[in-house]
């Protein structure tokens, strides 16, 4: 929205106000001014000339020679403008004048003919980008040779008001509304708009408003018109407000729209068929051809202006091409209406036409304004077109004309208004409040004691002013917010609450960055289609939140796991390097993310096994009964607001998805190769072991940071826990999981709260870089719900204890943890003094035979162990270990 300093100065005395200082003040009082432009400046030296001779150029077809009368002298210049004609008034630029457009006119020759000066277009003078012809000064009352700036009032200051800052102010979409604010701001009177016009009698046309979405439709007929270009001053005014001048009739509609803010439309009366105008909803399948020559198919949500035969305009958006004003138009039907804001906006958006008109109607214009704008248009048109007359009464149709809504009255108190601003009665007396509101055309009835009944003017009532708080804003901005003194709030001190998850996030972040040397990333909440396909996520919709309007087709689903985006991030960083190391074999990248994933509650119909796999042990709150202790325990761990959020989720008809916070870790090591085809490199076992260990170490580091006992990693494939194995086929949720090289992360009670895995070889091969990658993902809330690690401050043991090592053959498929756990259990069951069984190392013979070396820690608190006791432990441990390696073989084979 552009505001013209000169235009508003017609109604407000702006003498002595610095236009730049004004911009600052307006920004702090009314709305943000983005830019200030001086328009039409720097044209000193340009003269008004009359073309008194036109002759062909002897050496060029497209050039002509113009003889120009400048009063005291005549000059002949070369001119290329196609519209040059005898008798025309034009701007003449003498040699030596430098124009704001950058053109410097010289006393030179054009194609062999002397040309001391030039005739200028609007573009030459920097007034617009129109260089199709000369700026016509026809009708300018000044002797030839007068300075252009003397003859035409051309200089102006333009203010660019940020449209976003006036979306709630329909009244500020016209120059007069801005002038009203400025008058209040400067504490000056506002001159009324001249709307005096002699109306005719009788209806202009048969009008019926058949929809409540057009509260007011004003209409008049003007006859005796002669269309012609508007005077130069008007044309330039439209230009600088961004509107292309066309002809006096069209220009008058635009001028009055810019002035009042109410868009207008003029139909050529000859093409209003059947002498009828109907304002109605569009019929299905109807088509209207708009002014821009496009055929627009309509839907019943659109509002149209129809004549006796069909739609002739898209109401509030654009007029129709058939009834547009032409050179031979003699009679017009004027439309000045108010349309429903939402309807206009929806139609404008649907057909992709955001016009000056729709931009205004969608702000909810004051229906009073339509009538004022109609009168103002008639006044303006009669001035522009001396032969014309209003050939009808000004018809006023629509619900608004039948019954005006009552004036809105806000009852408040001066004390309340002041208290909300934080000013005293001395600073802002009652009288000032009344004066300020009256200046903004509010009706005020002050009562003794400071009570106020404030009548809201219609132009502020459609959208903006409803409550006493709205009056607080009016007073505050005109009083000046900079004058309000700061006051410290007196709110009582209470302990500040921070959710456990946030405290945990901070600890985990510190542990993983400082201890584990991992980097935190924050990634998008969407899964990328391409990535999903590479990870084998074949069925996109299952159990996921889908977007109705995705940024791109590839990002149409919300993430349900952190892993896919993390894997992609590891891959990208292994590919291009981490900024320190070149991307070569051995490059290590370790990332983690703390963030929410989205699990639709409707996902309940998924099979249980899949759901467990997906949700990583999140208690199924939605299906558990309220009294369920697990549910209660889980809820009690949440902060009050999360509790209410979760309860809300469970109670609502259309529950929000569960949005658990997860910790995701992805670590990768670049393998050798890199050339195409070498991506299928199989990582050495030691590399795989290392990469997986990094992921597990990260998880355990996070767990320790929260004061929880370390999680156990139970191998998903060790046969000890068949019910936790994922559904048979590589399903979409777990398709990146290596079926052998993965484990469940379990709390002390055995509940699964996450998993850790190397990538499935098919997924690893689909990466763009040869790499071994491990991912771990766990549920933060579930982790927090685990009991804290037991801590006690006992004195160190007096007797240090001893340990024995043993090496046993171990079958393929047996996990060391299972053996250690089983051996310890056996030893303790046999009352032997073993306190721990630890893995030391594993040896794999060239033939593939594995052996495992274990260490058994023994202790008796009262005394040292005897060698006989140690030997008993060793013997029992060996027996037990051999048995469990055999058992493992048997079970995994079955």
């Amino acid at each position, binding site marked *: 929205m552009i505001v013209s300093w000169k235009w508003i100065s017609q109604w407000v005395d702006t003498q002595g106000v610095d236009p730049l200082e004004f911009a600052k003040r307006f920004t*702090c*009082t009314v709305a*943000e001014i983005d830019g200030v432009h001086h328009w039409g400046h720097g044209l000193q030296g340009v003269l008004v000339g009359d073309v008194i001779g036109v002759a062909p150029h002897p050496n060029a077809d497209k050039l002509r020679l113009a003889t120009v009368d400048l009063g005291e002298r005549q000059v002949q210049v070369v001119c290329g403008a196609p519209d040059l004609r005898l008798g025309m008034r034009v701007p003449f630029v003498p040699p030596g004048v430098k124009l704001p457009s950058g053109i410097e006119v010289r006393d030179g020759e054009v194609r062999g003919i002397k040309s001391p000066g030039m005739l200028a277009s609007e573009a030459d003078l920097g007034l617009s980008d129109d260089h199709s012809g000369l700026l016509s000064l026809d009708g300018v009352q000044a002797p030839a040779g007068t300075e252009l700036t003397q003859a035409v009032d051309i200089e102006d200051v333009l203010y660019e008001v940020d449209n976003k*800052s*006036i979306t*709630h102010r329909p009244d500020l979409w016209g120059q007069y509304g801005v002038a009203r604010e400025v008058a209040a701001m400067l504490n000056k009177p506002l001159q009324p708009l001249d709307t005096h016009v002699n109306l005719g009698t009788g209806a202009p046309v048969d009008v019926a408003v058949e929809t409540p979405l057009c509260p007011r439709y004003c209409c008049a007929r003007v006859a005796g018109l002669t269309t012609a270009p508007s005077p130069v001053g008007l044309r330039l005014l439209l230009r600088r407000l961004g509107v292309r001048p066309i002809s006096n009739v069209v220009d008058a509609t635009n001028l009055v729209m810019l002035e009042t803010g109410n868009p207008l439309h003029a139909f050529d009366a000859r093409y209003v068929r059947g002498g009828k105008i109907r304002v109605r909803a569009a019929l299905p399948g109807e088509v209207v051809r708009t002014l821009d020559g496009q055929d627009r198919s309509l839907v019943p949500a659109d509002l149209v202006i129809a004549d006796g035969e069909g739609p002739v305009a898209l109401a509030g958006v654009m007029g129709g091409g058939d009834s547009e004003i032409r050179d031979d138009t003699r009679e017009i039907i004027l439309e000045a209406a108010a349309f429903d804001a*939402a309807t206009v*906006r929806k139609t404008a958006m649907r057909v992709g036409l955001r016009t000056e008109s729709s931009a205004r109607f969608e702000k909810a214009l004051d229906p009073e304004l339509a009538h004022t704008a109609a009168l103002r248009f008639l006044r303006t048109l009669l001035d522009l077109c001396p032969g014309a007359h209003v050939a009808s009464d000004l018809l006023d149709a629509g619900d608004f004309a039948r019954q005006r809504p009552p004036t809105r009255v806000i009852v408040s108190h001066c004390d309340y208004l002041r*208290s*909300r*601003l934080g000013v005293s009665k001395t600073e802002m007396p009652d009288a000032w409040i009344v004066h300020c509101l009256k200046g903004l055309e509010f009706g005020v009835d002050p009562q003794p004691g400071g009570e106020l009944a404030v009548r809201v003017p219609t132009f502020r009532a459609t959208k903006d002013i409803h*409550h006493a*708080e*709205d009056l607080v*804003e009016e007073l*505050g*901005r005109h009083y000046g*917010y*900079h004058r*309000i*003194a*700061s*006051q*410290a*709030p007196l*709110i*009582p*001190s209470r302990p*500040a*609450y*921070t*959710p456990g998850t946030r405290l945990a996030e901070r600890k985990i*972040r510190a542990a993983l960055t400082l201890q*584990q*040397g991992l*980097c*935190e990333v*924050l*990634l998008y*909440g969407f899964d990328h289609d391409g990535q999903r396909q590479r990870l084998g996520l074949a069925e996109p919709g299952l159990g996921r*939140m889908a*977007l*109705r309007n995705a*940024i791109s087709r590839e990002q149409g689903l*919300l993430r349900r796991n952190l892993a896919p*985006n993390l894997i*992609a*991030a590891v891959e990208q960083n292994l590919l*291009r390097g*981490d*900024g320190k190391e070149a991307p070569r074999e051995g490059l*290590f990248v*370790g990332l983690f993310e703390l963030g*929410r994933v*989205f699990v639709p509650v409707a996902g309940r119909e998924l099979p249980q096994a899949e759901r467990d796999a997906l949700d990583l042990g999140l208690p199924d709150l939605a299906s558990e009964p309220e009294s369920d202790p697990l549910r209660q325990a889980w809820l009690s761990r949440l902060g009050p*607001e*999360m509790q*209410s959020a979760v309860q809300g989720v469970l109670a609502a008809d259309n529950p*929000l998805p569960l*949005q658990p916070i997860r910790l995701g870790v992805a670590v990768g090591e670049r393998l050798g190769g890199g050339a195409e085809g070498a991506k299928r490199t199989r990582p050495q076992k030691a590399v795989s072991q290392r990469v997986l260990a990094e992921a597990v170490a990260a998880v355990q580091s996070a767990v320790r940071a929260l004061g929880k006992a370390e999680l156990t990693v139970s191998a998903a494939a060790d046969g000890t826990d068949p019910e936790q194995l994922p559904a048979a086929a590589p399903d979409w949720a777990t398709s990146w999981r290596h079926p052998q090289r993965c484990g469940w992360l379990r709390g002390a009670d055995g509940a699964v709260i996450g998993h850790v895995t190397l990538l499935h070889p098919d997924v690893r091969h689909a990466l763009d870089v040869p790499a071994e990658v491990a991912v771990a993902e766990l549920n933060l809330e579930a982790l927090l719900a685990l009991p804290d690690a037991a801590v006690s401050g006992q004195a160190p043991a007096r007797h240090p204890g001893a340990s024995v090592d043993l090496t046993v053959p171990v079958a393929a498929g047996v996990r060391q943890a299972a053996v250690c756990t089983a051996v310890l259990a056996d030893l303790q069951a046999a009352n032997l003094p073993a306190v721990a069984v630890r893995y030391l190392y594993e040896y794999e013979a060239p033939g593939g035979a594995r052996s495992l070396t274990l260490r058994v820690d023994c202790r008796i608190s009262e005394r040292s162990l005897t060698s006989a006791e140690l030997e008993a432990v060793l013997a029992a441990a060996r027996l037990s270990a051999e048995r469990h390696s055999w058992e493992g073989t048997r079970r995994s084979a079955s």
Partner: protein
Amino acid sequence: MAVAWQDELDAVRDRWVAAAAQAPDLAGLRSLEVEALGKQGEVTLLVRKVGSIPPEDRRAYGAAAAAVKGQVEQAIEARRQGLERAEVEAELADNSFDETVPAHAALGRAARLGHSHPLSQVQAEVEAVFTSMGFHVLDYPEVESEFDNFEALNIPAWHPAREMQDTFWLEGGHLLRTHTSSGQVRAMHAFRPPFRAIFPGKVYRYEATDASHEHTFHQLEGLLIDRHVSVGHLLDSMRTLLSAILKRDVEVRLRPGYFPFVEPGFELDVQCQLCGGSGCSACKQSGWLELLPCGLVHPQVLRAGGLNPAEWQGWAFGLGLSRLVMMRYQVPDVRLLLSGDLRWLSQF
């Protein structure tokens, strides 16, 4: 006779004292010490020889032998101290050590440095400031209901913000929150007033991305509910909090701004740090930088939060955390924040 053993004692003493004084190093001195003073050492044997001395000489011999042993011990000790000192002096004189050899070379493995995300760092810092001033830190869902994101915030159905072009809508009717303001009404229901809280988090806008636009970014909402809250209170809070966050004394300016959930609503500007308010290219010559929208909580929002506007009032603001990070670290492109690119992240 007496002279004979005396001479022998003296000779032994002189020899060992001389030998000790000439011992080349501590190891030599140690073996010398064993030879002289060990169990079978020459001096030890001399002392033990007291049994073979005639009884009338035994006392004198014993005393003389003990004196010799003492003198040899002294000589060895003196030499040891000299040699130890020399060793220390030698180490002190040695300048061949390079203490700048990097850890990864000395340790034989790369020192791995982790980095937390700048958004997390800034968020944690801002949270600490607010916590220190008694604000709760709250965390609300990213997938929100239309009610909490719009209706409750006095953004009715016809409002442009509800249109497709600004909001990510989900199949089934919910949406990705377009602002952290969606937590306002949740907080009002969760806490008994008066209270003050911030809720930072991820927000989403349906828009094309470029260097200064991103469909996913981070905001921080602030909300204070009390019996009486004025523009003066808002000004004081904003000045105090922003001074703590920006780590300098800031001048703030309020100017009218329109947001349906506050009334009056403001754009808050801070005085430009670069020019100190006199105008420069960074602040487009205005002397002020637009920082955040804020205002007094709209009565409709209070009602949606179950509070009676006749009893309770409030202020609210929304701070762009992503923008704060970009300002602080001169980040040229907002898309770097969520890129996962270690070349960028490892700077923090």
